């Protein structure tokens, strides 16, 4: 039986999710991550860059050139292929959990009307 990987920490997941939509600089990542979590995860600069540091070390994101005419002081980040596959794995894991909870007829899995 294949051993499942541990879930991604919420901030790392949201950063990868934000970057899946295209390369971004730090502040844009933070804004997008907050939007994706519906304000549920309040990422600040230290959390953001601690996660970015770890993701860079893991090779899941990389520093990329900014778009033409962008502020040269900003650093842009993009998702790599291993990062993309980690994100897909996490989304699949979540999907499986939702399916399982629906199969168990858990009340929390029912959509809120």
């Amino acid at each position, binding site marked *: 039986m294949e051993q499942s990987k541990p879930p991604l*920490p919420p901030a790392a997941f949201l950063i990868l999710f934000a970057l899946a939509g295209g390369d971004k600089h*730090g502040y844009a990542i*933070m804004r997008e991550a907050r939007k994706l979590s519906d304000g549920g995860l309040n990422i*600040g*600069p230290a959390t*953001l*860059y*601690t996660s970015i*540091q*770890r993701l860079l070390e893991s090779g899941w994101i990389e520093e990329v050139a900014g778009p033409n005419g962008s502020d040269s002081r900003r650093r842009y980040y993009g998702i790599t292929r291993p990062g993309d596959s980690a994100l897909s794995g996490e989304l699949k894991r979540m999907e499986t959990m939702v399916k399982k909870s629906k199969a168990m007829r858990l009340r929390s899995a029912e959509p809120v009307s």
Partner: protein
Amino acid sequence: MTRFADLSIRVYAAALPLYPPELRRDFGVEMTAVFAEDLEEAWRSAGLAGVIRVWSRAGWEVVRIALPGLVTNPAIGVPLLSFVQSVGALTTEVLLSHGRLSAPVLLLPGLAAALTSIAAVRAGKLGLPVPLEL
């Protein structure tokens, strides 16, 4: 807002040495820039409440990310713990002299200090990295 924003950014930049050295070295400038943008946006969209939110988030990050690194670094942690213990002892003495403390309460500051010291020494001895949350 400009003067307050300038002051806020200066205070945030001054607090950067509290963070782990690698984080500060690689991303200190960006962290300050992101904080500044966040502050500006919060002021534009939510006024004072937004600014308070940005600052409380920054304060919480100091507690959650910077402080564990400081406490487990013996060069900083030991003097810091000694300082905390001294403040605790002094406070206890003042409260005692005013008859505001009962005997069991006296044990609490000492117990808390002992537990944090043991945790810091264990982390230092084992060479554990500071558990930074992603």
